[in-house]
């Protein structure tokens, strides 16, 4: 890979992402390219498609929920072109690995809301919680159970009582109880898998520094 291009890319990304050192960004870019499987950096708009990304989420970050993995993909994909480019990759990972509380809060909300109207709706919650009860007796009872669970969640988080959760609602609820950050399903990696990933990704830096 052209060192110059890489340097420039690192420079430009490091302006918008503060949580990584430049050497770390470089590592992440290298990984990105390895994942995309092409050495061609010039095609800046080419990136990871949804399936590849989901495989990464599953194998590296241990996520399992299909619906949510899709949503995480969309949350990474800021420009909505169905591909995650290198900038989106680094920025997304910065939230994943080193995000502040506010960043994670924002990220989770983005994962959970769907319609783009800035609210998490009741139907949306239902969808996300659909599989959250173990199938003891199939059929209506589970549905009822989930509806009730949605009610409980709304009662807890919908402070302005408009039947949907705004960002303000979400923020308030999570600040009150941080357990509610991933309230509708895991969308952030576990601390342990983060550490593993960092150790793997930055191993060159770590070893070279000795």
């Amino acid at each position, binding site marked *: 890979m052209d060192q110059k291009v890489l340097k420039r890319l690192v420079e430009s990304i490091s302006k918008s992402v503060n949580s990584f050192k430049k050497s770390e960004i470089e590592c992440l870019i290298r990984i990105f390219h390895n994942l995309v499987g092409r050495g061609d950096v010039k095609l800046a708009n080419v990136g990871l498609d949804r399936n590849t990304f989901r495989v990464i989420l599953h194998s590296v970050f241990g996520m399992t929920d299909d619906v949510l993995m899709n949503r995480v993909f969309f949350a990474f994909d800021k420009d909505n072109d169905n591909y995650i480019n290198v900038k989106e990759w680094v920025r997304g990972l910065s939230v994943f690995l080193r995000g502040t509380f506010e960043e994670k809060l924002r990220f989770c909300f983005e994962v959970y809301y769907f319609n783009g109207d800035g609210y998490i709706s009741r139907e949306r919650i239902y969808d996300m*919680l659909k599989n959250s*009860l173990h199938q003891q007796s199939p059929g209506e009872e589970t549905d009822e159970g989930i509806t009730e669970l949605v009610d*409980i969640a709304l009662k807890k988080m919908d402070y302005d009582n408009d039947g949907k959760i705004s960002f303000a609602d979400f923020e308030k609820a999570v600040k009150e109880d941080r357990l509610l950050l991933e309230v509708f399903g895991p969308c952030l990696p576990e601390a342990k898998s983060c550490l593993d990933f960092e150790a793997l990704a930055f191993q060159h830096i770590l070893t070279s520094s000795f």
Partner: protein
Amino acid sequence: MGVALTRSAQWTAAGHGAKTLEVTPLNEAIVKEIMMFVESFIYKYPQEANYVFVEPLEWKTNLDPSAFGSGYAVSETTVKSEEVDKNGEPLLYLSVPQIKIRSFGQLSRMLYIAKSMKLKEAQACIEANRNPVAKILGLDYNIINGKNGNSFVSSVLDKMNKDDDPESEIKMKIALQLKQLDLHLLNHSLKHISLEIRLNSGTVKNDIELLKQFSGKGEQTVLESIEYTSDYEFSNGCRAPPWRQIQGEICYVLVKPHDAEILCVTCSKEGVFLNGGKTDDEGQINYERKGEIYKDLVTLLKEKSAIFSENMSKQEVKFSEQLQKDQPNKAPKEEVAVTHKTSITSRKSAQENRINLGRSQLTKRLEPSLNWRTSVSSKESRNTLRDTQVEKHGGKLEKSRSSLSSGRAQLIRKSVEKIEEIISDSSSESEEDEEQPDHRQEANADLPSEYWQIQKLVKYLKGGNQTATVIALCSMKDFNLAQETCQLAIRDVGGLEVLINLLETDEVKCKIGSLKILKEISHNPQIRRNIVDLGGLPVMVNILDSPHKSLKCLAAETIANVAKFKRARRVVRRHGGITKLVALLDCGKHSAEPAQSSLYETRDVEVARCGALALWSCSKSYANKESIRKAGGIPLLARLLKTSHEDMLIPVVGTLQECASEENYRAAIKAERIIENLVKNLNSENEQLQEHCAMAIYQCAEDEDTRDLVRLHGGLKPLASLLTNTDNKERLAAVTGAVWKCSISKENVTKFREYKAIETLVGLLTDQPEEVLVNVVGALGECCQEHENRIIIRKCGGIQPLVNLLVGINQALLVNVTKAVGACAVEPESMMIIDRLDGVRLLWSLLKNPHPDVKASAAWALCPCIQNAKDAGEMVRSFVGGLELVVNLLKSENKEVLASVCAVITNIAKDQENLAVITDHGVVPLLSKLANTNNDKLRRHLAETISRCCMWGRNRVAFGEHKAVAPLVRYLKSNDTNVHRATAQALYQLSEDADNCITMHENGAVKLLLDMVGSPDEELQEAAAGCISNIRRLALAIEKARYS
């Protein structure tokens, strides 16, 4: 007192000219109260005591003019006080038999002079002056007083404004005092009246039936037999003949206790008393009352028979249980009013039962270590006792509280669980370990809506994945988990099991959510037990190892809540929890923390705080204290103590305070320079922190160096200033405790005097709970060791409240009070006051106290009293049975009691007449029996007593006959010079008898004594030399006799 006198006192029917007071217990009590008021007036209100009455109080007295001493001009038939009013009229004028008195001061003095006659004089005065208030203050005051109590104060104030000369101010003060007395008397008589009408045929019958069940031959029964005198029962339940029923008498019983003659007892509506007995030949009963009236049969028998009292306290649980069971069956037969009364009696006996158990110390389990509770119930019990002794000396202290106490008791009983767990930071292992019976909510009872909601949430906990579980947990937290309904609801729908199971999963979020709930609901004692039963503690202990700090915190906090009872603390220890908790304390070390790595993390300081919190709970068990120490907890706690966060300091100091009960800890606390920080935190704003610091100092200040450290770090001043803040009683108890222990060092006492702490302590002698009083009196006892402080205490009027406290029943308090009173008695002037307040008699009666510590302490206190009392010999003789009591105490097993009693006897024997009496009571053989002892303290006092007792009759010979001489000689081999001196003196006295000389010689006394002659102690020299000379003289005489 006007109102009380007109309304409550029972006057005889008119017709005899002047009315007289009937001889009833109520009247007697009222007169006594008034008498006590007047007697103490001169000390309490010296200024008002000089106020001259508007009209003199005038009555026929039985006093002889010769009884009056200095301060009075006495002629054969008249006495005039030297004290005069403005016009030169004497304030006391006695012209046999009429006496006129015009000031409270003179009244007080007159009562003092009257001595044993004072009750009669007081009664005569009240009878002759039916409206004393009018005479004292003038008519206008009296009218207001009688008519309307509320406008009284305002109109007095009006008067004050109109003419504000000093006299009217004094008048008003007196008026207020009298008003108070009046109210007090009314309350008092009310209590009497409510006690008065208590017995009826039903209750009496129950008592007797029950006692019968517990009677018979054998050790365990309470009585040998109890029988009615008559088998015939009238339809109204009485057995007394009709002409006696008119007098209110119900029946007569013959009781044979194990340790006394047959008692013939009358049960009447007024109470139970001994009658003249049954005349054998005719089977007639002598109905005359022969003894005091008791409130019921059980009380009477307890007084008359020691074995009954003892066995009763064992049986009483059963007894009162049955009594209560029986009551409802009988009650419907009686009238409504009667039902009410029976319930009162049964409740009373239940209370009494509790007290008795407390006394016999069977109660370690039944009666948890809750100081508040015991003290309250004991106060209540005092109300139920109608023993005149107690009535008489009960004093204001008790009465002012009595109205409060029942309400407080109920309140306390209601919330007993809570208080038991929260307040009880007493370190005993036995505390609150009674397992509460579970009370499950009944299935179909009216359940609150929360119940169903919680049930639903628990369903999600059981059947949901992580996401659903977290939502359910968060939602559950929104319920009011401090409410018992919710706590029990969670348990009853099986939530506890699920919550604990969640702790064993790998899901951090679920664990956090679960712990947050467990932390809250574990404030409930029942839930705690359930958590332990479900094996929750080991899981939590394991979580303490987790890398997640917030998890550690929550687990530690939950453990802190759960480990409030012994079993839980044991589980924590057995699973290695203590070591892990101590490790948490170490977290605070790295103050420079790395940036937050995880969302759910908390600060290290918080981890340490939670660790300390958990250790605080755990440190209430002895074994845990040891574990904490072994795990290296003390240096860590010492380091945490340097922070300034109150949240952190409270659990840290709390833990230290608990642990300081152990010797090891006190040494470590000294070594780790913890005292300095404790002192610093006394100045904190936080009351709880102050309390724990003071408590820790209290525990540690047993050690002399520590006391010095407290002074050196300036801790005495904050302690002294905290004394003035009396609102927070727990803190006050801790602070007074610290003051007490600190004042064991003389230098500290000097400081306290500088800070005026002694005056403050005297102020705390009244209206404080017993745990405060114990400490206050203890501190005063230490202060009293110095002359200067004794004067301060006398001048602040501290002696009266101290003497008043002599009637208590709290053992620790009595030990301290007797010590303080004894120390005061060293001062002749204070002694006069003690004598006037009848303090010596009270001390003497404490010799009957069952606790050896109290006995010994009372005996020590009596020594200076006898030394300094004016007419000591006469005073001692005036205590009926007193000398016999003292002599019999020589049969005690307790060395301290023996030593103290010997000291008392030494003082008593200074009076020849008394020495004669105690000789008759057999003091010589008893003393001789004690001679074989190795206890140096006892040896010393015993030897002193023996040398004193030699002064009478043939006691010298008697000691020889009872083989006391040989052991005494051996005392000379002791290492204690005091023992040597006392022994040499005793031997000198004994050597006046020839046989004793021979015994001494045989036991090698001469050589030992010769060594003593070389002692630097002059008294010892002299005694030893005297003894040797006696022995030698005898030898010479024998030789002479042989050769001539």
